């Protein structure tokens, strides 16, 4: 295969496999911020995440931003926890247009943090930064494709749970936010205690 295909595959595997669990859980809380019919809102949130992680991946790989791996791995569960708390706190509030853009900004920033995590992984796939542009592009497209699948599965689960399973949407969303939030607390504490 070409190097492009290889990096695409690794990007896809990274976000759909066990290594990318922290990113998957973030996608869970993003989806949990929306009801099934709020597809426009979900689209805005996912775009913000994508734009954020694409920008920071490029910046981190080219050495423009440098942050210790330990901090990045600590901040990733923090983004999950804050999103889950935000979802639970504001679940009943009607959202204005202005508020959506504020949320867009926050998710964009959270995406930047995840992007630095992605770039750490991609760095380990490069020798002397050779073929940086191609591999970054292919890896990122692979990530987006994988993200698309993850969100598809989450929407399907939401449909099965709330539609066929008759779980009220608000309860379903609380289950997701609660579980992800607890998991994030474990990670935040665990990472902090690691020397």
């Amino acid at each position: 295969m070409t190097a492009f295909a290889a990096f695409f595959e690794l990007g896809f595997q990274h976000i759909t496999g066990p290594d990318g669990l922290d990113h998957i859980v973030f996608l869970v809380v993003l989806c949990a911020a929306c009801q099934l019919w709020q597809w426009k809102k979900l689209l805005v949130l996912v775009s913000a995440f994508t734009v954020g992680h694409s920008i920071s991946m490029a910046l981190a790989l080219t050495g423009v931003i440098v942050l210790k791996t330990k901090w990045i791995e600590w901040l990733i569960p923090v983004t999950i926890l804050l999103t889950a708390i935000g979802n639970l706190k504001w679940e009943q509030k009607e959202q204005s247009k202005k508020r959506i853009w504020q949320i867009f900004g926050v998710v964009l920033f959270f995406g930047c943090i995840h992007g630095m995590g992605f770039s750490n992984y991609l760095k380990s796939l490069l020798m002397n930064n050779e073929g940086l542009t191609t591999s970054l592009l292919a890896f990122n497209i692979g990530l987006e494709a994988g993200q698309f699948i993850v969100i598809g599965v989450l929407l399907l689960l939401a449909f099965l749970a709330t539609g066929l399973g008759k779980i009220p949407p608000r309860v379903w969303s609380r289950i997701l936010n609660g579980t992800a939030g607890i998991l994030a607390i474990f990670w935040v504490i665990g990472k902090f205690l690691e020397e």
Partner: protein
Amino acid sequence: MHRFLIVGLFVAATLHLSFRHAFYVSICQIEHNTASSGLEITHQFFIDDLEKGLESLGTGKLKIGTTEELAKANVYLKKYLKKHFNIWVDGHATDWEFIGKETEDDLIWIYLEITDVKTVQHLKVQNSMLTDVYDRQTNMVHVRSGNDQQTLLLSKDKMSGDLVL
């Protein structure tokens, strides 16, 4: 609601315990140098991962890349490489020569060479390095010959691959 909380807690704890943020990857670059009629090979590993692999030979701590590196480190390294990294040129098994190694921070580069390779049409690469210690190990192999460049992704399920150059 309490039921959900207990299930949520259980799921979270299980996921937390099963999650490790570690990347199990190595990179290998094979370049056909027509001028010197040789295949020049560079491996890149994380030092701690490679040491884990070498320890499977019963080496104990080798302290590679430090001033306390054991004198036998290269012997074990070659032994481990012979077991896990082999190349066939146009159907013929080859013997690589160990040129040397370099380390920087947490990375190690290993240089190998196969001499007397004037032309290559078909290349078979076996790279099962570290698949014996990490189930999720991925070994990325880039092969370059002239303008042609191809890549193999090797793992425990697929330890070798064939390329037509």
